[in-house]
Each structure stands twice: as C-alpha cells, then as structure tokens.
C-alpha cells in the first residue's frame, strides 16, 4: 500500500476556496446565510485543530486517567446534549433515567467491544479507546434523543389510549406498551437504515478514513463491520434501558398517569 499524501497547510487553505465560492453565491443571490456559513466553518476548523493537538497529547502520554477523563467528558456532553435538545422539558426523574441508561448502556457495550472483540492492550490505549468510545456514545446519544421525544410525545398524544387501558385494569406496563414500542422503533431505525445502505449508498466515514490513511480495504471493512455491530448493540441497549425505565416516570405509585 502507498502511504498517505501529507497535506501541507497551503493545500488545506485551498480547500477554503469552496467556502469562498459559496459566500459569493450567497451574496449574489441575496440569501442571508453568510454569517452562519462563516461561523460554522471557523468553529469546525478551530475545534478540529484543538482536538488534533489534544489527541496527539493523549496518544503520547498514554495515561489511563486521561483516557478515563476523556470518557467522562464525552458521556457528560452526550447526556447534557440529549437533555438540552429534548423538544419539551424533561422531568427530573426522566433526566436521571437518561443519564443512567446512557452510562450503563454505552459502558457495557464499550467494555465488551474493547476487551472481547478487539482485545486492546494496555486496556486504556487511547488510540482505540477514544475513537471507539466516541462512535458508540455519539450514536447512542442520537438514539436516545429520538426515543426521548417519541416517548414524551406518545405519552401526551396517546393519553386517551393509555388511560383507557388503565380503566380496564391494565398495568402501566401494558397500558404504555404501544408508546414504548414506537419509541424504541424510532430510536434504532436510523442505525438499521444506515446498515442497510452501507457500502452501496455510501462508504462509512471510519472506513474511508482508514483506507485514505493507507490501511488495506479488507482490514478497514473488518473494522467497519465490527463497529457497526457494536454501534447497533450500544444503541439498542441504551434505548431499551431508557424506554423500559422511562415510561415508569409518567405514572405515580397509584398506577395513575401523572398530571401536568
């Protein structure tokens, strides 16, 4: 395999010509989006440069505590993000359930993936630990975000259905079943869809990256298959934990739907 062509700063700068062209088009067409395009380009550049240096530092220092610190930051950011992006404000109880299912679900999948599937050594090797944690946590975050909204909407819009079931002597679990199932569905559907289109509709980012950096496509594909299964496992586990614990927060101890 050939090594990768190293990009010089000048070469990277030429890529900004895309942005310059876009800015001209926006100006000519009078579309008021110049500010957003500029800000997001600058943010992206700064964030990536920063994270590049952080990763270089992490890889060189090989410190288990730093790896765990990064994991903690990623989990916290993901949980914060889910809570912030929920369409309607979440109850305190539901926020706790979001945090609990994220931590339990992603950690279980991550540990299994790193130590059973890939078998990394030392256990904290940041080169594997950090990017894989990022992929599992990121995808699970998207899954729970979708699940949270569907669960909250469902419990609100389907209230007559849920209450009718209660009136007939159903347990809260049975009464909420339809809502819970649909929340689970909507949360894992994007992951399943992306698996179906993979390799035909698009080449996944991780695989493309590995191939560009000179790794044999066969190795890249092996990694991609493994990580996709890991992602599906992590998303399903976190979402199942979330919906199974989450629906309960809509009922009180007298098996009544909570008002307000």
């Amino acid at each position, binding site marked *: 395999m050939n090594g990768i062509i190293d990009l010089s700063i000048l070469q990277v700068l030429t890529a900004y010509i895309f942005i310059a062209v876009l800015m001209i088009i926006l100006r000519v067409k009078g579309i008021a989006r110049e500010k957003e395009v500029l800000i997001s380009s600058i943010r992206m550049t700064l964030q990536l440069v920063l994270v590049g240096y952080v990763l270089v530092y992490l890889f060189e220092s090989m410190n288990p505590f730093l790896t765990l610190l990064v994991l903690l930051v990623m989990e916290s950011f993901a949980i914060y993000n889910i809570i912030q992006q929920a369409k309607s404000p979440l109850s305190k109880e539901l926020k706790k359930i979001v945090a609990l299912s994220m931590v339990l679900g992603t950690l279980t999948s991550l540990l299994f993936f790193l130590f059973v599937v890939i078998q990394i050594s030392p256990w904290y090797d940041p080169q594997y630990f950090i990017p894989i944690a990022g992929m599992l946590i990121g995808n699970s975050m998207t899954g729970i975000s979708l699940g949270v909204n569907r669960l909250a909407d469902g419990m609100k819009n389907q209230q*007559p*259905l849920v*209450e*009718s*079931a*209660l*009136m*007939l*002597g*159903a*347990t809260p679990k*049975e*009464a909420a079943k*339809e809502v819970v199932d649909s929340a689970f569905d909507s949360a894992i559907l994007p992951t399943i869809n992306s698996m179906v289109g993979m390799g035909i509709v698009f080449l996944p980012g991780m695989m493309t990256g590995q191939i560009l950096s000179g790794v044999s496509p066969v190795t890249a594909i092996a990694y991609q298959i493994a990580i996709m299964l890991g992602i599906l496992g992590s998303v399903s586990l976190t979402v199942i934990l979330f919906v199974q614990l989450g629906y309960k927060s809509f009922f009180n101890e*007298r*098996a*009544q*739907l909570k*008002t307000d």
Partner: protein
Amino acid sequence: MFSIEQVTYKNILSVPKLTIQEKEITCIVGESGSGKTTLLRMLNHLISPDQGSITFQNEDLMDMDPIELRRKVVMLPQTPVIFQGTLRDNLEIGLRFSDKTPPSEKELEETLERVKLRKKLDENAQNLSGGEKQRLALGRILLMEPEVLLLDEPSSALDDETESLIIQTFVDYAKMYNKTLIMVTHSKALAKKFADRILQVRGGEVHEWDH
C-alpha cells in the same frame, strides 16, 4: 359499596358525604363541566382526591392495589378508545388487560348481538362509525363481567332508539347478574326511566335528585 367522605378535588369537586349502594343503578346527571366525569374517574382510581377518603367495600382506595380495584370497577370513558386490530381484538383486550381467560367464539358473537353491532368479528375496528365504536367499547366491558360498571355518557354517539336499547341491555344485565351500574348521562329522561337513584352534580357539589 362506595362511601365518599369529605372529598375535594382541585376546585372541581367537593363532596362532604355520599354513599353509592351495591346492586343499584345510579345515574349521575348535571351540566357539562360540573364534575361528573371527575367523580367517575375517582371511583376508578384514575385520580385521587386532594383530601378526604373514598372506600370500596369498606376498604380505603388508597390501601388497595389500584390495578386489582380497576379490574373490579371498570370504567368506560365518554369518547371510547378503539385499539388497533379487529373487532375481536377490541373485544378481547379488556380480558387480556385484566389477566382473565379469553372469551369463546360464542361469547364474542353474543356480545356483538347484545350491543346491536351487526358486523363480522374479523373486520378492522378502525372502519366503524362513531356510534359503532361506542357500542364495541360497551361490548368490551360487558365481556369483562366486572362487579361495578362506570359508564361515562355511554350513549353520546348513539341515536335515540339505539340509545334506549343499549341502556336497557346494560340495566337488564346489571339486574340479572347483581352488578352495580353507575352511569353519567346528559338525559334526565333516561335517568328517570332506568335509575334506582339519581345524583345531580352542580357547581362541583353532589345532590340527591328527587323525581
């Protein structure tokens, strides 16, 4: 059977004292928004009063298992809910929810006959008209054979003739099997015709209505 004491709920309902007798037909009348449905929901323990106590067979509702209670005291809401699936699914779901044995084919057919629904059991229930859905929901709770039936405006979507027939079915059923029937209705004529006792809810208070 039910005994209500010093019960208040938000500023919707306030009941100093009220008892509802076993094996009687009790009709609750009153204008919309007066608190009739709230009273029914309390008896089904779908909501709890802010103050006071409600007992069922001398046991405080708050001390009972809410699910077990609702299996004895079943409620039908004013706008009946139709679950996904066929008429059969919709009839069976009450028994399924309350962990009882599924009905036989014959029982299902008889129930459709009782609520005057001339449809096939395997038809999709979503295609029924409003009145037919209401009758299907009524059939669902008839099959459950609960001790107490709480009906909230059970005939709001029915024409006068069907209304009378259906209510008659329930009254006969309650009398024959010694069940307690508590029914909210907008029609005083209906209440007069069928009730052993009529309660009037007005401005959040419950009064005996002499007729």
